[in-house]
């Protein structure tokens, strides 16, 4: 996968993840062009389109469009399910996710994506494992807070073993 974009029906970009080196200018140009193209499409149309020498796979969830650019030999349907699995992960983490969750907790949305996809490839498909990694981190942060208070660094190990 070369990049993933999340944008609203109004065309506001909510998340952008680039897996190929591009300049900021190019990124903005691509985003503008794709948002326009995708928003212009009608609901019943097919989820795939050719764009430059890439294939675009997109799907709309409520007010948000999820849009991935993949290469010629990549599989469109499995990319559609990458999108869906990511939505499921967000949903599970935030509890019926909505656009606002992603706006206000954008950093979490990035962290979850990094656990799921890395360098444009699927890293971990198990929902449990991805969320475990994220929740562990959340937990860790609370524990760190406690640890710092009590200066009891030792409890760190227990937390890991316990989780």
């Amino acid at each position, binding site marked *: 996968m070369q990049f993933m974009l999340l944008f609203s029906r109004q065309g506001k970009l909510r998340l952008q993840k680039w897996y190929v080196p591009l300049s900021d200018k190019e990124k903005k140009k691509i985003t503008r062009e794709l948002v326009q193209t995708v928003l212009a499409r009608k609901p*019943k*149309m*097919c989820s795939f389109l050719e764009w430059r*020498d890439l294939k675009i796979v997109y799907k709309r969830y409520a007010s948000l469009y999820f849009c991935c650019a993949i290469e010629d030999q990549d599989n469109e349907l499995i990319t559609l399910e990458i999108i869906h699995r990511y939505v499921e992960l967000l949903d599970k983490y935030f509890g019926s996710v909505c656009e606002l969750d992603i706006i206000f907790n954008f950093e979490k949305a990035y*962290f979850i994506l990094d656990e799921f996809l890395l360098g444009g490839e699927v890293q971990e498909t198990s929902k449990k494992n991805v969320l475990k990694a994220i929740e562990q981190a959340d937990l860790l942060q609370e524990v760190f807070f406690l640890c710092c208070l009590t200066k009891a660094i030792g409890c760190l190990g227990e937390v890991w073993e316990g989780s």
Partner: protein
Amino acid sequence: MPAVSKGDGMRGLAVFISDIRNCKSKEAEIKRINKELANIRSKFKGDKALDGYSKKKYVCKLLFIFLLGHDIDFGHMEAVNLLSSNKYTEKQIGYLFISVLVNSNSELIRLINNAIKNDLASRNPTFMCLALHCIANVGSREMGEAFAADIPRILVAGDSMDSVKQSAALCLLRLYKASPDLVPMGEWTARVVHLLNDQHMGVVTAAVSLITCLCKKNPDDFKTCISLAVSRLSRIVSSASTDLQDYTYYFVPAPWLSVKLLRLLQCYPPPEDAAVKGRLVECLETVLNKAQEPPKSKKVQHSNAKNAILFETISLIIHYDSEPNLLVRACNQLGQFLQHRETNLRYLALESMCTLASSEFSHEAVKTHIDTVINALKTERDVSVRQRAADLLYAMCDRSNAKQIVSEMLRYLETADYAIREEIVLKVAILAEKYAVDYSWYVDTILNLIRIAGDYVSEEVWYRVLQIVTNRDDVQGYAAKTVFEALQAPACHENMVKVGGYILGEFGNLIAGDPRSSPPVQFSLLHSKFHLCSVATRALLLSTYIKFINLFPETKATIQGVLRAGSQLRNADVELQQRAVEYLTLSSVASTDVLATVLEEMPPFPERESSILAKLKRKKGPGAGSALDDGRRDPSSNDVNGGVEPTPSTVSTPSPSADLLGLRAAPPPAAPPATSGAGNLLVDVFSDGPAAQPGLGPTPEEAFLSELEPPAPESPMALLADPAPAADPGPEDIGPPIPEADELLNKFVCKNNGVLFENQLLQIGVKSEFRQNLGRMYLFYGNKTSVQFQNFSPTVVHPGDLQTQLAVQTKRVAAQVDGGAQVQQVLNIECLRDFLTPPLLSVRFRYGGAPQSLTLKLPVTINKFFQPTEMAAQDFFQRWKQLSLPQQEAQKIFKANHPMDAEVTKAKLLGFGSALLDNVDPNPENFVGAGIIQTKALQVGCLLRLEPNAQAQMYRLTLRTSKEPVSRHLCELLAQQF
């Protein structure tokens, strides 16, 4: 429970985001942001040390602002500080900031790398993963240099946690894609292959991606992955829908892993080991069987995941192209999808069937779906699906169904979306030509194309119909009659006027017997369109008129009247004016015999690749012509369209270079870039051969006209000078090249025109043009003194073997060059085979009685015969891989001699002659090029890659060609240019 309450809610951030959302206008938003930026700046600059939480909060705000699309030029240092925090979320935000706002400040990079190094060494898996994610997200060369060697170790270490292995595998993949040279291969590769056996499915999922990428470059090193992948796949495919627990997705076991494994297998030919192959075929059959089972869930996710595997399986079957049974089953399966209610499936089925159509085993099976596909073309509501249907019709077309398909496509064209009209036009034109049984059908089809979609009929298409009509005398009468009728329509497209004008000018006599199309009628019909046409068309019509004067002497007076009219003779357009003047004069001074000779019917065009096919390929990238490319499946087609003219090299030398660069995909040599200028337009129609007139000095248009005119004035001079043929002096007769000769030569490697040499006496200028393996060079010798040069004699010498490699014909020049005067010498050059040394130019003359002599290197280097070749990334890499013998590659690492400017570099590479390919190299700083060196005896495919390293002020240049000395020579030539 929402995460915000999970302990790290940054209230200040939430408030800020709310504020931004409440802004009513863009201005208000910018104002709010500027206020925040000022606030953050002052906090960062303040004397009071910020605590970690505040730093995190502000960095996060900056990130938010950046992601909104605003520029951020500070905060990097604070983010880097966060990296070494021992609080996880602080570190995490620091890493996120760094990976989104990559900065090239080297001091910063040093600090970042240091923090990453510490985290990688921390043995804390959570920190290690964060660091690996950051490397993978940034993926820069600097990161590669710092960590590419460590990551394989982490990946295969026995004590690495699974999550670390997963991140390490994909991190390495990213670094390898960015800079493959930085990832050292070694004993770890064997252990990576064995990760396919890992019991953790996530580890396997990550590892397969890495292996798929690595094995493309080193297929042999990773060969063992085939059997491992097959057995892994087999276990997944045969597992029950719940066996894999959390790796089962909507009742489909491990769909992502399955797809990746099937992709990996597509990097290799079918397994050699019979047992492995048997097992794999079984897997593929199981997938095909499962497609027929009732779905286990009604959810679209279930069917998508299942069909993702199915489509990947079909891709593998097509890739193997060796199991007729599986191919036909695949085709039947896709046939079912063609009528599926899911648009996505219909789209993919049409796409996938396109590739099936090119397999001899399934071509017939694909053809049985013709009615469904035609129906899709008519009824699909989504233009991208219709486009796929048109592609498939094109791919499945052969002699048996050509008439049906062409007529359906023509009908579709009337309502087709504007975006795809031109492509449909090209496809119809190609099919009509390719499968024409009788040429009247072909002519009808093309004229229909012009009628229906005249605006989308490109020059290539109507040039082609003229070429074919010119070459086939059995269709000329029919063509003349048909265009005549078509021109009678009250409104006809300008392209119709062009075709009509040309054809009537050539073959109007064939229908002149019929009083309804007598010469005056033909002329007035054409002339009635004249005033509405563009300059280019009017220019063409003027040529038609002069041809009419020859064909039909009775029209002479009328036509001369037209030419004489003020609107022609004094036309503001110089081209029209010139034609009117010249044609008028020609028609009045030349005798009937001379006219008949000059205006004779055009000779047949040499057969070569259809320029339309080349255009379609340019539009769609290589492979677009699919099965039609070479008519392999249908050998008899060659006699219809002349087919692809075999190039000498493909016939006589079965060298590996023959089809390496997809010579057939290269733009046809004779088709000039499609400009609309009148000159170019005409030369393609009128010129008679690919390179008979390299169109140098005089514009191509003048070249055409010069056939009609007395010889150019320079020739008599040459005749007067010295009638004796000049024997080239042997190398021993001339002195060694002057010391600067090499340097002077280097100046001309990337350009064709300029001053070659200058001293107090003499200036030598060069103007040259090369096309294919031919070139023409004009040398201008300027006498800078006020005294006449005597016995002036420039000669070209071929040292060594060069005579057999390069033919240079020179014309003698006047032996006296007056003071302040300039003489011109024309050199015709033909490259016979590849050569390494340039010819020498020896100039001798007497100046004030003293003999002067001077030897230079003639700026003719092998790269002049480059023909640029465009290709897609995939093809480039495939060809790059094919040229992997060590002797085929030449590499040079060298210091930059000039400022490193990307635009200048680009211009130099283009001047060097290769095409520049964008989006091939994963690193956009790098340059990748491709081209073919055209010589008479053979063609040499060349690929090149130039990697600038701005920091070190160095370049690395790599050349791969099918001929060893050529690689080295080109590498040396080019390296001196930067």
